[in-house]
C-alpha cells in the first residue's frame, strides 16, 4: 500500500530534474495519478491495513515499543479516494494548459502533493504525519508561479501561515507525547480536563484550521485564490486542503481527544462566525477568483460546525459537506480557470453574457453555484440539511452549547442565504446579461477542460439526488458507525417532486398562451439603448458595502485590520524597530553592550 506514497513523490522528483517537456510530463503525471487512484480505491475497498516499523523509537533513544507507521481505516481510505479523484480531474484539466498560466514544473509538484497527501492521510505516527503535512505546505508554495509582486506576496503569506501552523502542530505533538507517551493516533485518547490537555488540543486544532482555512487563520485563502492559477486553486485550498484539514479535525475531535463542553462551544463559535464573516466578505468582491476564495472559507464554517457538534449526525454532515464542497468548489475554480483561459479577465464587471459562448461551462457553473448555495436537489443542499438536522438534534442534549442551538441554526441558514446572494452575482455577472462587444469571439474551452467539469457536475447532481438512500449510508457508515437521519426527508423523493414540477412548468409554457410574448430591449427611461450602456451586476452589491454599520467594518477589513497575519507582522516589526534603534553601529555603544553583559552576568551568578 505504500506505493501510493512513494511512487508519486519519486516520480515527481525525477520529473523535476529532467528537462522541461511539459506535454510529456503531463502525460506521465496522468499515468501515475491513474495508477495511484486505482491503488487508493483498492486500499479503500480492502479496508484496514497497517505498516509497522520498529526503529522510530530507537531514533530518539527512548524506549518505545514498535510503532505503526501507516494505518488505513475507513476514514483515511475514504479521504484517499477523493484525493486521488481530484488529482486525476485536475491533471486532465491541465494537460493542455497554456504555459503562461501554470507555474513551471506544475505536474511534478502536483505528483509530489499527491504522494505527500497520501502519506499524511495514512500516517499513524504523529511525527511522520507532520513531515508529510509540512511537505505539503512547501508544494503549495511552489504551485504559485510568483513572477509578480502580488502573487509572490500571496505565496509568502500562505507558507508563513501554514508553515507557522506546522510549528504549532509540532508543539502540540510534543505535548501529546508528554501526556500520553505514545505518538500513535490509533492509541491516543486524551481527556481535555487538564490545562495541558486543552493546550495540546488547541495547538493541533490550529494546525487543522490553518490548513482548512477557518477563521481566524483563513486570510491566506482569498489571496491564494486570487493570485494562483485556477488549476492550483482548484487543487489546493478548494479541495485538497479542506480534505486534509477537516480530516485532521475529525481525527482530533473524534478519536485523539475527548472534548469538554467549553471546547465544543468555542469550536461552534468559530465555525458559525467563519460562515458569516467570510460570506459577508465574498458578497462585496469584484474579482471572481477572490470571491470563490472567500466562499472556500465560508463553507469550512459548515464543516467545522458540523464536526464541532460532536454527534454522529454532525460528523456525517461535516464530512459529507467536505466531500460536496470539494466537488463543487474545485468545479467552480476550474470554471474560473476556463473563463480566465479564454478571456484573460479576472474582474466580474469586465465580463458578461458568456452563457451563449461557453454553454457547457455555463451549465456546469450553474450546477456548482446552485449546489454551493444549498438549493435542492443538489448535493450542497443534502449536506447542509444534514447539518441543520444535526444542530436541531444537538439541541436536545444538555450543556451550554446545546442550549444555544437556535443561534447556530440561524447563523448557518443565514450564511446559506447569503451564499446564494453572492452566487447570483457570480452567475449573472459572468454568464448572463448583455454580451460585451469585446467578448464576442470567445469560444467554448476544449474538451480536456470541460470533460472534468462535466464529470464533477454529474457527481454533484448524483450525490444530491441519491443522498439519503445510497450516498450517505454507503460512504459514511463504515467511517462513523450506524446512524439515523432524523426528520422526514428523502432526497430522491424531493428530487422527483422537483423534476415533476419542472416538467409541468415546461408543459404549461409549451401549451399555454405564454408563447406569444414580446421581445424587446431593456427600458431605461426612454433613452435609446447604447452598446455601452449596461448595468454592472456588481453595482448592486456596492449598496451592501456602503450601508451604514457595515461600511466601517468593510473599510477596516480592506485595511486588513482583522488579518491575524498582518497583526502578527505589525507586532514583530515593532520589536524590530526598537532593537534596530539600539544597534546604532557605533563602536562605543557596542563596547558598552559587552561590558554591561559581563557585569549583568556577574551580578546574576554572584547573587543567585
Amino acid at each position, binding site marked *: 500500500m505504500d506505493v501510493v506514497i512513494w511512487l508519486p513523490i519519486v516520480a515527481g522528483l525525477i520529473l523535476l530534474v529532467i528537462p522541461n517537456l511539459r506535454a510529456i510530463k503531463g502525460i506521465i503525471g496522468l499515468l501515475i495519478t491513474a495508477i495511484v487512484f486505482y491503488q487508493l480505491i483498492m486500499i479503500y475497498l480492502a479496508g484496514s491495513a497497517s505498516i509497522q516499523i520498529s526503529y522510530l523509537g530507537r531514533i530518539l533513544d527512548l524506549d518505545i515499543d514498535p510503532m505503526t507507521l501507516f494505518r488505513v481505516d475507513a476514514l483515511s481510505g475514504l479521504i484517499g479516494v477523493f484525493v486521488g479523484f481530484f488529482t486525476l480531474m485536475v491533471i486532465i484539466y491541465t494537460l493542455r494548459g497554456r504555459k503562461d498560466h501554470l507555474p513551471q514544473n506544475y505536474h511534478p509538484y502536483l505528483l509530489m502533493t499527491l504522494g505527500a497527501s497520501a502519506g499524511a492521510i495514512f500516517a499513524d505516527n504523529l511525527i511522520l504525519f507532520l513531515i508529510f503535512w509540512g511537505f505539503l505546505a*512547501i508544494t503549495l508554495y511552489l504551485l504559485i508561479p510568483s513572477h509578480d509582486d502580488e502573487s509572490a506576496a500571496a505565496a509568502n503569506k500562505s507558507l*508563513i501561515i501554514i508553515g507557522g501552523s506546522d*510549528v504549532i502542530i509540532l*508543539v502540540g505533538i*510534543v505535548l501529546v507525547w508528554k501526556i500520553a507517551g505514545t505518538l500513535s493516533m490509533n492509541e491516543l485518547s486524551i481527556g481535555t480536563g487538564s490545562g495541558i490537555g486543552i493546550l495540546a488540543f488547541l495547538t493541533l486544532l490550529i494546525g487543522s484550521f490553518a490548513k482548512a482555512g477557518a477563521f481566524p487563520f483563513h486570510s491566506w485563502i482569498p489571496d491564494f485564490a486570487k493570485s494562483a492559477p485556477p488549476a492550483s486553486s482548484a487543487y489546493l485550498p478548494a479541495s485538497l486542503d479542506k480534505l486534509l484539514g477537516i480530516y485532521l479535525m475529525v481525527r482530533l475531535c473524534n478519536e485523539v481527544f475527548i472534548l469538554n463542553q467549553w471546547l465544543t462551544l468555542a469550536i461552534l463559535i468559530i465555525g458559525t462566525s467563519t460562515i458569516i464573516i467570510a460570506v459577508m466578505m465574498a458578497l462585496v468582491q469584484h474579482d471572481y477568483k477572490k470571491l470563490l476564495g472567500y466562499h472556500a472559507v465560508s463553507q469550512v464554517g459548515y464543516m467545522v460546525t458540523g464536526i464541532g457538534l460532536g454527534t454522529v449526525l454532525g460528523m456525517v454532515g461535516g464530512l459529507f459537506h467536505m466531500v460536496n464542497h470539494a466537488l463543487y468548489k474545485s468545479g467552480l475554480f476550474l470554471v474560473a480557470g476556463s473563463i480566465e483561459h479564454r478571456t484573460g479577465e479576472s474582474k466580474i464587471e469586465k465580463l458578461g453574457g458568456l452563457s451563449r459562448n461557453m454553454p457547457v461551462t455555463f451549465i456546469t457553473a450553474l450546477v456548482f453555484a446552485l449546489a454551493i448555495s444549498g438549493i435542492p436537489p443538489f448535493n450542497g443542499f443534502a449536506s447542509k440539511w444534514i447539518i441543520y438536522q444535526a444542530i436541531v438534534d444537538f439541541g436536545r442534549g444538555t450543556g451550554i452549547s446545546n442550549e444555544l442551538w437556535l443561534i447556530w441554526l440561524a447563523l448557518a441558514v443565514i450564511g446559506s442565504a447569503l451564499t446564494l446572494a453572492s452566487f447570483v452575482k457570480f452567475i449573472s455577472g459572468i454568464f448572463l446579461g448583455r454580451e460585451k462587444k469585446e467578448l464576442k469571439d470567445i469560444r467554448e474551452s476544449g474538451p480536456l477542460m470541460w470533460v472534468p467539469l462535466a464529470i464533477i457536475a454529474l457527481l454533484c447532481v448524483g450525490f444530491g439526488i441519491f443522498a439519503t438512500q445510497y450516498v450517505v449510508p454507503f460512504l459514511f457508515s463504515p467511517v462513523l458507525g450506524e446512524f439515523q437521519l432524523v426528520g422526514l426527508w428523502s432526497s430522491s423523493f424531493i428530487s422527483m417532486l422537483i423534476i415533476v414540477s419542472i416538467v409541468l412548468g415546461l408543459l404549461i409554457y409549451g401549451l399555454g398562451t405564454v408563447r406569444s410574448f414580446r421581445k424587446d430591449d431593456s427600458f431605461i427611461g426612454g433613452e435609446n439603448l447604447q452598446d455601452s450602456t449596461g448595468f454592472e451586476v456588481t453595482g448592486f452589491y456596492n449598496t451592501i458595502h456602503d450601508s451604514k454599520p457595515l461600511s466601517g467594518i468593510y473599510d477596516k477589513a480592506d485595511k486588513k485590520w482583522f488579518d491575524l497575519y498582518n497583526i502578527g507582522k505589525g507586532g514583530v516589526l515593532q520589536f524590530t524597530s526598537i532593537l534596530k534603534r539600539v*544597534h546604532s553601529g557605533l563602536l562605543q555603544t*557596542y563596547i558598552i553592550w*559587552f561590558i554591561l553583559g559581563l557585569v549583568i552576568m556577574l551580578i546574576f551568578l554572584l547573587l543567585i
Partner: protein
Amino acid sequence: MEQLVPVFIILPLVSAFIIPVTGRFSQNFTRGLSSIVFLILTVLCVASIGLWDRGMIIYTVGGWKPVGDIPIGIDLIFDGFSAFILGIINFIALLSSFYSIGYIKKYTSENNFYTLLCLMIAGMNGVVLSGDLFNIYVFLEIASIASYALVAFGVEKEELEASFKYQVLGGLGSLIILIGVGLVYWITGTLNIADSSNLLITKFDNKFYIVTQILFIAGFGLKAAIVPFHTWLPDAHSSAPSPISSLLSGVLIKAVGIYVLIRLFFHMFDLTYEVSLLFTLLGVLSMIVGGILAIGQSDYKRLLAYSSISQVGYIITGVGLGMLIIATGGDGSIAALAIFGGLFHLLNHAIFKSLMFMTAGVVEHSTNLRDLRMLGGLSRKMPLTTNASFAGSMSISGLPPFSGFFSKLIIIIAAFQAQYYVVGAIAALMSIITLAYFLKFHKDTFLSKARSEVRQFLPVPVTMKVPLVILGILCVVLGVFLVPQMKEIFMDPAINVIIDTDQYSEIILNVNR
C-alpha cells in the same frame, strides 16, 4: 592514527606559507592547493570514523613528560567531539576554497587570500585539537587575526570599518579570555584542561570560580556571537568575501566559540545549575534578538548574519538544556537528546548557512547587488541558485522534510520532556519568525518581478555551482542522521564524549602519569 593528529594543524599551516612562494610561479597550483589540503583533511576525518567511539587519541607534542604531577607538554586531543567538529570545519573549508577559485578572481592578490584562508583553518583546527588553555588561546588568535584580515579583504570603506570594529571587539574578547586563562593558571599552576579540572574544585573558592566562568562565557561568547556579545557579527560577516562569510558563519563561530564553551564547561568546570541556567537564558535571548533583527534587514548578507545569531541561539539552547538536565540530576537520556539536538543543529547550521552565503556570493557576483529592495525575479535566470537557496531557507526555517526541521524538533522535544515548556515554546515561535524572514528574503531576491536595478548579469563559473549543489542536497538528506544506525556512527561518539563529564580528564591524566 596517532601520528596523523598534528597533520590537521601542520598541513594548512605549511600550505599557508607555501602559497605566497608558489603563487609567483603558478597561479593554478595555488588555487588548487588549498582545496587539495582540505580534501585530504576531510578524507582523514571521514576515514577515522570507525575510531571515534574507541575513546580518544592523545598526541603529546615533542613527547614531553610531566614534571611532578603537572603535564607540561602540549597535548592534542582527538576524540569523538573534536573529530565531529574537525570534520565540519574541513568539509566546509574544502567547499569554500573550491568556491573561491571562481569567486576570488575579481580581487587582486589572490595569494594572500589563500594564505589567510589556510591560516584561519589551521587556527580553528588547532583550537579544536588543543588540550590546554593557552594553546587554545594562541590558535584562537591565529584564526581571529586571519579572519580580521579576511573581513577587510575588499579594502573598501565599509569593509575596513567592519574589520576595525571586529578587531576591537574581538580583541576585547581575547583579552577577557586571556585574563581567564591567567586566573586559572594563577590558582592551579597548570594550563592543561584535564589537570586543572581536578585542581580547580579543590583550590578555588567559590567567588573566583564564578568570575573565571563568567570571563570565559563572555570571551568565548563574543567569539560565538551570543547576545549581548554579538554586535560585531553582522558587520563582519556581511563585509567579508562570500566564501569567507560562509566560513565565518558556518564554522568559525562554532569552532572557536561554541566548541570551546562546551569543552570547558562540560570537561573543565563542574556543571552548576546557575551556569547552566545562564547558558540557556543566553541561548534563548540570542534566538529571539537575532531572529527579530533579521526580519528588518534589507541587505542580503546582513540578514543572513543576523540569522546566524539566532541559529547559534538554538545550538546554545540545546546544549544549555542538556547542561541543566545534567546539573539537576535529571534523566540522562533526555540530556543526551538535548545535546544531540544542539550538535545536530550545529551541523545543520554549518551546512545551510554556508550554502546561503555562497548563494549570496553567486547573486552578488552575477548582479553586483546586495540590496533586497533592488533584487527580484532572479528565479528565471538562475534556477539552480534559486533551488539551492530555497532548500537552504526551508532547512533553516525548519520545515519538513529538510534537515533543519529534525534538529529543531529534537531541541523542542527535549525542552518539553525536561519540562522547560517556555523554552520549547519560544524555540517554536522563533521558528515561525525564521520562516517569515527567509520567505521574505526568498521573495525579494528570487521571486517577484525583475527590477530595473538588475542591469548586468554575469555568467557564474562552475566552481561556484558545484558547492551549491552538494550543500543543497545535504540540506535535504541530512535528516537521515536521525536514523539510529547513522546516528550511532556520526553523532553518538560526540554526544557520549560530552555527556561523560569526568571521563575526559581521567583518560588524559592516566596517559600523562
